């Protein structure tokens, strides 16, 4: 089961397997607060798509053991949700596409504008960082002056999304012209791991 999860993840070193989307997230959706103060604890992790509650019960026990190095400060309701998962649907492990879509982080996130997400750098060209955050396209950001050398291939970063895909309809065109890129502002490296180590 652990092997299945690692193959499904497919991005080397991507975020640890996430369990059931914690109920706290759904509460946040009801009262959206887009303030930057709250953003730190609610960075969306679209990489390494979450396992939903209906997935295999035996898979969840290794997940709970692995979940401690979670980048965001998810409350302990995560483990509670994981335990509740297998009990809900023990035998049926085929989730419909509509259900998977509805519970996926990308859809739960809502409009992409000003959402904080976690990304991973997968390519570096001198000063340009190509960052994949789990959407259809990657985004390209400039290397910041602060801690510039720390941004290498495989580093995890925090981004504030602007748009999932840069498209625009030009005069006289039948369809939009797309840049095949997303747009995001680089906020900084993922620091919570260091904080966690101190604790």
């Amino acid at each position, binding site marked *: 089961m652990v092997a299945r999860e690692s193959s*499904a993840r497919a991005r080397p070193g991507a975020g640890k397997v996430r369990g059931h989307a914690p109920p706290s997230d759904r509460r946040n959706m009801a009262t959206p607060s887009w303030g930057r103060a709250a953003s730190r604890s609610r960075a969306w992790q679209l990489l390494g798509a979450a396992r939903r509650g209906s997935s295999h019960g035996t898979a969840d026990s290794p997940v709970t053991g692995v979940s401690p190095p979670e980048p965001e400060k998810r409350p302990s309701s995560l483990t509670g949700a994981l335990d509740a998962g297998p009990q809900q649907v023990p035998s049926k492990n085929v989730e419909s*596409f509509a259900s998977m879509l509805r519970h996926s982080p990308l859809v739960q996130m809502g*409009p992409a504008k000003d959402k904080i997400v976690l990304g991973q750098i997968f390519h570096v060209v001198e000063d340009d960082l190509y960052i994949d955050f789990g959407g259809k396209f990657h985004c390209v950001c400039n290397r910041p002056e602060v801690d510039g050398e720390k941004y290498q291939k495989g580093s995890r970063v925090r981004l504030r999304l602007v748009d999932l895909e840069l498209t625009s309809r030009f005069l006289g065109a039948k369809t939009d012209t797309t840049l095949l890129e997303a747009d995001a502002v680089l906020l900084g490296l993922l620091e919570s791991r260091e904080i966690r180590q101190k604790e």
Partner: protein
Amino acid sequence: FAPPGRLNDALLFTPQPNLCAAQTGGRAQTSFFVLLSVINDKLITEPLRHPDFFNVKELFSLKELFDARVHLGHKKGCRHRFMEPYIFGCRLDQDIINLDQTMKHLQLALNFTAHVAYRKGIILFINRNRQFGHLVEVTAKDCGEYAHTRYWQGGLLTNAHVQYGSGIRLPDLLIFISTLNNVFEPHVAIRDAAKMNIPTVGVVDTNCNPSIITYPIPGNDDSPLAVELYCKLFKTTITRAKNKRKQMEVLYGLQNKADSS
């Protein structure tokens, strides 16, 4: 499932006249050729009796497709009109492809690819997306087939006999990992393959035209995860079909030895 009008196996195994003689019921001059043609028929017709002879259904699942972001499409403004049947819906201006339909189409396409590979057809991978050009070439090399990820010269298929000499064998299947070329227009090879009666399998995104493609697979062709998944699936199918072919040859070879002795 058969590629139209191509009896590649017959040509490889026996010279044409002897095969015809066996089919018309007349006794071939040597029992050797009769045996070969009997094996030939069984080899070729046996897989056609099963709807999923190579069991391609088990190679992928809805979850795998979902995790590889196959369902994500372009924005609403980029949508091609003919992709509307394959689109599940539009969420905040981004099209979502219906993965239930993708599953069906993917199964059909992989099944067809497997049959072509089983009958020793030549498969050509085409991709003009520079981000995945190397990956597609490596995939083709690994399964022993061919890839074309560079600029497509106009007469490659339609003028092959003039450009490359007569007697050239054209590919029996074209697989498009992305059906668009660098300027977001349909790849010329789609139209040329249709002209030359070569079947095509292609991954069509929401801004592509699925009309002339024989086995379209509605899905994302821009994310690296999705493209890696497709390459892996095609590679596994083709290798599986080729191995199956070797197995069947051995099986029927042994059977015929047992029958004759």
